[in-house]
């Protein structure tokens, strides 16, 4: 099999793990807008890296995306502390889009590069990209399993958690940071605009269908993976972008299920 295709198949699997774990925890914490926010601020980081590259300065997109997304996480957690989560997220969101637009316009020959980060292309992952996806997926899974019960408790009952001496602010920040890492991991493969559908739609669908914690994780993993694979197959036969097809499928499934319920 073509190496690029094999890489795409395995990367889809890893990204689905990210989508299931980070997406589900986001949905439990009622913060799905966060995923969109951190994806778009990551994009600002990527745009800056691309701009720096174009003027001859070495900058890795992943690092810049990560820093931008973590900075966004920090702002959102601070805003959440004061109770105005949506205003905080929305403002940081448009700030990062503005920055992304500015950096992209400053960058020569940027269009195709920026395009990949906007809409993703899982068939264009380099060996480097693939290594990044693998390592950060392992990292996210380990970290989440370590803090799992704390995240759950805070999602269920933040005041009870606070009363039990849990540092809700700290763990909220950790959760948001891990979600950001997950989102950045999927950025190049799925794209900043479509990452929301791959992370949130399957988890929201799974939350409607699942009747236990584990079933929510499993269902969202299966939904994310089948969307990504169907996207790959479609793009193989009809040469349309696989990420867009995958995002469309995941979103349509969500609407179909929430319609029925």
């Amino acid at each position: 099999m073509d190496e690029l295709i094999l890489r795409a198949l395995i990367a889809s699997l890893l990204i689905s793990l990210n989508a299931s774990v980070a997406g589900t925890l986001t949905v439990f914490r009622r913060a799905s807008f966060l995923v969109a926010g951190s994806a778009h601020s990551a994009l600002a980081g990527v745009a800056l890296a691309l701009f720096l590259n174009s003027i001859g300065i070495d900058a890795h997109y992943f690092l810049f995306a990560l820093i931008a997304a973590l900075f966004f996480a920090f702002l959102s957690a601070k805003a959440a502390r004061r109770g105005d989560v949506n205003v905080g997220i929305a403002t940081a969101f448009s700030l990062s889009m503005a920055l992304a637009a500015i950096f992209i316009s400053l960058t020569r020959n940027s269009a195709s590069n920026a395009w990949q980060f906007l809409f993703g292309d899982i068939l264009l992952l380099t060996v480097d990209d693939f290594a990044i996806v693998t390592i950060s997926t392992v990292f996210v899974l380990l970290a989440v399993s370590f803090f799992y019960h704390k995240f759950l408790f805070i999602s269920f009952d933040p005041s009870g958690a606070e009363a039990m001496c849990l540092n809700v602010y700290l763990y909220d920040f950790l959760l948001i940071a891990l979600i950001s890492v997950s989102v950045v991991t999927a950025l190049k493969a799925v794209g900043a605009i479509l990452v929301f559908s791959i992370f949130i739609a399957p988890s929201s669908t799974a939350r409607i269908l699942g009747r236990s914690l584990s079933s929510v994780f499993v269902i969202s993993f299966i939904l994310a993976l089948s969307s990504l694979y169907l996207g790959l197959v479609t793009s193989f036969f009809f040469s349309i972008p696989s990420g867009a097809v995958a995002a469309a499928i995941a979103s349509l499934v969500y609407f179909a299920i929430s319609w029925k319920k």
Partner: protein
Amino acid sequence: MKAIEFQDVSFSYNSEEVLSDLNLEIGRGEFVAILGPNGAGKSTMLKLTLGLLRPKKGTVKVLGFNAYEERDKFVDKVGYLPQREDIHLEAPLTISQVVKLPMLARGKKIGEENVRKALKIVGLENISDKLFSELSGGQQQKVLLARALLSDPEILLLDEPFNGVDVISQEKIVEVLAEMSSRGKTVVAVVHNINPLLHNIDRVVLLNRRIVAAGKPNEVFSEENIVKAYGTSIPVVVCEEGYTHPLYGDYHG
């Protein structure tokens, strides 16, 4: 040593003072109800007791410890039942998962036997695998009570335990609380309707930004005090056992 002490405590979230000059001592084994209109500062008083908020003035002590500064010293001895509006139902947790979650989150082991015991106290031991989100309001409240009981706390703080609870469940909850109090545990319950508890409590605190009155229910429910707390008079009746019942159904919201 008292279970809970408020010494000249004032508190404000921003500029406006929410609680002013509270002085109150609650002895060990006392069963106390806190009563007052919406926005009176009842939940705030519980949060000060839990050490979640820092008094602007004065000190709150719990089991002799400064509530804000030394809360890790008594946190294991306090059970807390939050106002149910603060609970989010996104995650499909079973009843027994809800009961165990605080312990798991703090990295502590819990025996299944203790979980079963806590659920048995509130009469839900047979449906421990049901989803919490699919229970009625009263059943959810009982699960949260079981959760607060799990560590066999010295002090039990309850924020509106009867909110959305039918009469049968109310009676069950009162029975559990009275049982706790007779075993020497301190129970403090914020309520909007005192009547289900009236025969069991030792004292009632009438609160409206300050303590309007505190003492035996019969002393507290005078026309004057009720007007001071609620701004309007509420009829009272004395039942055949000699307790003064305010006649109102002051529901939350």
